[in-house]
C-alpha cells in the first residue's frame, strides 16, 4: 500500500510544476528585476540614498503581484478542462498536492524572490552611487520591514490560492471582487455592531468620539483579531484549498 504523504513525491511534484512553468518564471523574474531596479534607482535620485524602508516598499510592489500571478499559474492545470484529467489522475494525494503548492508558491517563491531582490537592490545601489553619488548602505534581509511584508504575504497568499482553485475564468478579478464584497460586508457588520453596542455613548452625535473609536479599531486589533487574522486565517484558507482539491471533479 502506497503512503499518502511522501516527501520525495512532494519534491517531484514541485519539480514538475517548476519545469512546466520555467518560461513564465524566468520572464516574471526578469520583468520584476527590471522594475525593482528602476524603482530603487528613482528612489535614490530623489534623496541620494536607499533606506531599508524604501527598498522594502519597492520590494513589496513587485513581490505581491508576482506572487499572486505565480499562485494562479501553478493552479492552471487544475482548472483547465483539457489538462485536469491527466493532472488529477496523477498518483499524488491531496495532502501532497496542497503541501507542494504552498511550499512552492509561498516558501520557495519568497526565498527565490528575496535573494533576487537583494541582488538587484545591491546592483541598483552600486549604479546609484556611480550616477547619483548616493550613499551605499547594505540592506539587511532580516530587517523588521522585510518580515512584515513576508508575514503579510503568508496571510494573503492562501486567499489567492483558494481563488485560483475556485474560479475557472477571470480568476484574479473574481478573487478581488469576492475580497471586496467580503470587506464591505465585514465593514457594514462591524459598523452595525459598533452602533448597537455604543449608541448610548452618543457616538453619532457629531462629536469626535466615533471617529476616534474607528481610528483605534483600524490600528489596534483585539487579542481574538490578532490570533484570527495573524495565525488562523492563513491556515484556514489552506484547509479550504485542501477541500477544493479533494472535491474537484472534471
Amino acid at each position, binding site marked *: *500500500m*502506497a*503512503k*499518502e504523504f*511522501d516527501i520525495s*513525491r512532494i519534491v*517531484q511534484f514541485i*519539480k*514538475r510544476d517548476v*519545469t*512546466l512553468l520555467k518560461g513564465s518564471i524566468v520572464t516574471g523574474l526578469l520583468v520584476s528585476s527590471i522594475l525593482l531596479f528602476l524603482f530603487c534607482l528613482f528612489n535614490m535620485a530623489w534623496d541620494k540614498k536607499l533606506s531599508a524602508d524604501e527598498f522594502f516598499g519597492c520590494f513589496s510592489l513587485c513581490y505581491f503581484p508576482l506572487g499572486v500571478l505565480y499562485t494562479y499559474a501553478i493552479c492552471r492545470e487544475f482548472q*483547465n478542462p*483539457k*489538462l485536469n*484529467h*491527466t493532472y*488529477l*489522475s*496523477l*498518483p*499524488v*494525494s*491531496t495532502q*501532497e498536492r496542497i503541501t507542494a503548492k504552498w511550499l512552492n508558491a509561498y516558501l520557495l517563491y519568497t526565498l527565490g524572490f528575496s535573494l533576487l531582490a537583494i541582488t538587484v537592490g545591491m546592483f541598483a545601489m552600486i549604479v546609484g552611487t556611480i550616477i547619483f553619488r548616493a550613499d551605499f548602505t547594505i540592506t539587511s534581509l532580516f530587517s523588521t520591514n522585510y518580515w512584515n511584508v513576508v508575514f503579510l504575504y503568508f496571510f494573503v497568499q492562501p486567499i489567492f490560492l483558494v481563488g485560483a482553485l475556485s474560479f475557472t475564468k477571470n480568476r484574479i478579478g473574481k478573487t478581488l471582487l469576492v475580497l471586496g464584497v467580503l470587506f464591505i460586508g465585514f465593514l457594514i457588520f462591524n459598523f452595525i455592531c459598533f452602533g448597537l453596542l455604543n449608541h448610548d455613548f452618543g457616538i453619532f452625535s457629531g462629536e469626535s468620539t466615533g471617529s476616534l473609536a474607528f481610528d483605534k479599531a483600524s490600528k489596534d486589533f483585539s487579542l481574538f483579531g490578532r490570533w484570527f487574522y495573524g495565525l488562523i486565517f492563513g491556515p484556514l484558507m489552506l484547509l479550504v484549498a485542501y477541500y477544493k482539491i479533494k472535491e474537484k*471533479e*472534471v
Partner: protein
Amino acid sequence: MLNCKQLQFNYPKSRPILKSVDLNFGSGNIYGLFGKNGEGKSTLMKLVCGLLTPEFGYCTLFGESTHARSVQTLKDLFFIPEDFELPALPIYTFEKINSVFYPNFSREHFYTLIEEFRLYRKQDISKLSFGQKKKVLIAFGLATNTPLLLLDEPTNGLDIPSKSQFRKILASSINEDKCIIISTHQVRDLHSLIDHMVILDNAQVIFNQSLSTVSDALWFGRPSKENESEVLFSESTFGGRVILNREFQEESEVDLELLFNGVLSNPEKINSILKN
C-alpha cells in the same frame, strides 16, 4: 479487478446518464465499451477514475474505492481522455516529469513506442498535431504498466495507418495482469482487438459479453436461402451480412459493427440467445 456496483449518475439539470450500472472487469482482457454519442461512455470512464462522484453506487479497483483517489489506486490506473492538451515541452521532459509518479514505468518501452509512432524524443509537443499528441499520451499510458488502462475514443484524430498501428501495439501490450478498457463509438476501429464487448444504451448496460461467447452462439455472414427466415438481424448497408443463431454452422468472425447495431435494435433477442 475493477467492480462497478449500482452506479448512478446525472449531470445537473440533465437526464440520468447512468442508471444502476453493474459491471465487472477482469485482468487479461481488452474491453470495448460501446454506445451512441452521449450514452455515458466517457462519464463511466471518469467515474471509474474517481474524476466524477456518482449519485449512488461505487467503483472499486482491487477492493479500494476509486472515488477516494488514493495514491495506490491512482498508481494502478492510467486514463487517456478523448480531448486533452499536453504541455509545451520536449517529449523527453514530459516523460521525465511525469514518469516518476509511476513505479512500474518503463522508459525503454516508452521510447520504443515513440519510435514506432515515428516521433523522436527531442520533439516539442506543442508543435505536434493532435493525433501525434495522442500517440505520445498512448505511449506514455502503455509505458506506465498500470494494471488498468482506460482509453476514451483513442482512435479519434489518428490517421488510417496509425489506427492499425495502434491496434497492433495495444494487442501486444496486454498480459495476464493488465486490463484495458477502450471506449468508442467507432466500432470498426477495434476490429480484432477486443475480447469483451459492453454496450451502453439509455443509461444502462444492454450488452455485456465476451466475444468468445458471441462467436459460440452467433453466426455472422451472408445467409443461404434456407436460413433466411432465421435471421436475427440484417442490414442492407453491410452487403447483405446478417446475424444468425449459430447452431451447427461453422464459427465465423464476429462483425462488431453488425453486432452493435443488432444489439441496439433488439437487445432482448440477442441476449436471450447468448444466455441459452
